[in-house]
């Protein structure tokens, strides 16, 4: 029979310790509402980073959707994670910490590739598929981006259709175009080029071929601009794929 004065039992009692202060932070996600380029959005984040950005009619609606998708309890945020508010307003989100733990490897690869697209530029879905290591999974890329947990922060609005149209967006196609125009993408020119069968632009002076929205392509003077329908045509004409926009994987020299 165990008595209260049992020294071993007492010593065992000493093994009870306070939980580390970070434990609750590993259980709860925090949420807040913040202004963004598309108006007020709701944002949720864990101790590892931002994991959900959505518009919603009410905080309750956002919270319900978050719980259904992530199965984690929410509490109001004390403050926004560093860098979140500027990123929502359109500053670079490349240093912002994101929590993408619940996603598959392919989903993470798609978001990582999308995250590398600079403001003011666009890439076709096929480019993301290739960068994510599955060049034929173009439709799958569309599905992943349609469910992008962190739009704006991973700029899925910069992934567009190969025919020059903006394509679907989880906040609506017109929002997608607005965002691109606000970033100074010449949406109309891109569409006109695509209609004329031009998907790549090469510079006769540098011998480099780019996507039309690449900042290198935009500097090419009209006299030295050469359009290509397919990247293979540009390569066989002696052009080298741009290292920034990566319209094709560069052939080893």
């Amino acid at each position, binding site marked *: *029979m*165990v008595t209260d004065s*049992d*020294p*071993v*039992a007492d*010593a*065992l*009692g*000493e*093994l*009870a*310790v*306070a*939980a*580390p202060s*970070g*434990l*609750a932070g*590993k*259980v*709860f996600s925090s949420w807040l509402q913040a202004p963004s380029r598309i108006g007020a959005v709701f944002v949720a984040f864990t101790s590892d980073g931002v994991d959900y950005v959505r518009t919603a009619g009410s905080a309750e609606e956002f*919270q319900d959707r978050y*719980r259904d998708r992530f*199965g*984690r*309890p*929410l*509490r109001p945020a004390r403050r926004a994670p560093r860098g979140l508010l500027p990123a929502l307003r359109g500053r670079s989100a490349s240093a912002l910490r994101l929590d993408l733990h619940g996603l598959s490897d392919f989903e993470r690869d798609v978001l990582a590739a999308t995250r590398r697209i600079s403001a003011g530029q666009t890439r076709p879905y096929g480019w993301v598929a290739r960068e994510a290591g599955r060049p034929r999974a173009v439709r799958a890329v569309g599905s992943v981006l349609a469910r992008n947990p962190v739009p704006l922060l991973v700029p899925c609005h910069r992934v567009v259709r190969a025919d020059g149209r903006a394509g679907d967006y989880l906040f609506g196609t017109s929002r997608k175009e607005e965002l691109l125009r606000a970033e100074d993408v010449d949406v109309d020119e891109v569409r006109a080029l695509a209609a004329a069968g031009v998907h790549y632009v090469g510079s006769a002076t540098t011998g480099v071929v780019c996507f039309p929205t690449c900042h290198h392509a935009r500097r090419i003077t009209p006299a030295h601009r050469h359009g290509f329908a397919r990247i293979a045509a540009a390569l066989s004409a002696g052009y080298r794929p741009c290292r920034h926009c990566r319209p094709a994987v560069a052939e080893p020299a």
Partner: protein
Amino acid sequence: MVDDTELTAALAADLDAGFVDVVRVHQRSVYSVALRLAAPADAQDLAAEVFLRAYRALRGYDGVRIRELRLRPWLLTILRNAARNSARDASRRPAPPPAAEPVEKPAPGPSVEQQVEQADTARELGTVLGQLPDVQRLAVVLRHVAGLPTVEVAEVLGCPEGTAKSHISRGLQRLRALLCAESGVGKGVR
């Protein structure tokens, strides 16, 4: 300590707000037991996993079922299962590299000598606890580390109370024998 009735009533009214208090009240027990069932570096993650599993289960419960819950044995039962699963998963995977997590600082209060002595005792106890058969270790930890009454220990172990009591007392006996063997008679605890 807040009563379970208050906690479960709050949970039934507002799951997320109520869950804040559940974590606050029960994290000490869950973490302290987790420390004895997992490597120290994994204990916090294991405890967090327990609360997340509990939350996911609670989402599917109606108010009546939530109000009937006895939270501490329920949470510790989840812990028992989670620890079992992670041990099974770990045995299928190669061991991870040693964790680089900083060691928790001892709380201020006792003198350095006392702290060292306490830390030694704790380490020694922790080591010999690890040598007990699983069910005895869990029974002893639940009763004497987490301070559960035997009826709750039985609930977590899923056995009759008499069986739980015998696991506890056999575990303690074994623990004493191991401590004596480790440090010779007269040394060890006390």
